């Protein structure tokens, strides 16, 4: 039962948000698919930023080991903050794409 708490909780609040959007705010049903796709798009950009950040960090650490006497552990890059910062980078990048007019690629 404990394992189901989080999925059930998120399911219930998602349903509540759907009802508020559809009934209270009169949002379009057809736009949900576009919203999910936009979310997946943003998640994909987040993963690209995360991959680039991780790859760059590994190169910097290995270079620092070779070029200096300083020892930096590769485990330094395994930090949750990098994921959050990559998400922030992706949100800003996506916002920039959205605000830059219709000639910019978007799903």
């Amino acid at each position, binding site marked *: 039962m404990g394992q189901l708490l989080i999925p059930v909780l998120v399911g219930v609040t998602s349903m509540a948000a759907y009802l508020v959007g559809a009934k209270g705010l009169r949002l379009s049903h057809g736009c949900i698919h576009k919203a999910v796709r936009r979310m997946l798009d943003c998640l994909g950009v987040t*993963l690209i930023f995360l991959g680039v950040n991780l790859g760059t960090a590994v190169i910097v650490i290995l270079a620092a080991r070779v070029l200096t006497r300083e020892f930096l552990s590769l485990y330094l890059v395994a930090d949750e903050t990098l994921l959050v910062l990559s998400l922030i980078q992706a949100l800003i990048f996506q916002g920039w794409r959205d605000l830059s007019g*219709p000639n910019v690629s978007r799903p």
Partner: protein
Amino acid sequence: MRPLQMGALGRPRRMVWADLCPLLGGVGLALFLVSAFTPLSNLLSRPMGGPSALEPAEAIVVLGGGVMPNGVLSNSSMRRALHGILLHRKGLAPLLVFFGPVRDSGPAEAEVRAELARALGVAPRVILAAAEPRTTREEALRGSVLLQAKGVQRILLVTDAYHMRRARTAFEQAGFEVLAAPTHDLSSGVFRPGERLALMRRVVEERLARLYYGLAGYL
């Protein structure tokens, strides 16, 4: 209508980019959900430890697991240290070797663990603490210098189960006969989504570490 640019294969470039990101996001989301809400991480981590071989040896070697600058051992480090001390108290080997460097500042992990062992009744003369090695490979190389000078060949190697395979290979290459003594296997006791994600992260980290050791010629 927005203009489309054609790629080398005649496919619109913008369509490729527009499809790639949602696809990548979908794969990432699916992996996240599967990792958090199914036993996938438990299954993937299970074969990483291998069986325990608790037999008499000439030394118990406890690998580093992390210490905070204020001298508090990480969970992993404490688990490994206590496992090593218990094996010594059971009489499986006369020597107890602790590894673990200084992190940023403060005391060395090896010294903190040696102090813990002394406080738990282990005789100071049987404890060796080595704070210089910073990686698994360096621990194996330092271990060979420290122990083979004392004629030690057969060791009980203590580390987390998911780390054992790489550590065991490193110590075998340094000339030891290794008996695996992994701390308890986390794969069987992890059920909450956050714990499963943490376990998956360890599995991925260890597989990447093995890949790195392989590429560097350490394995």
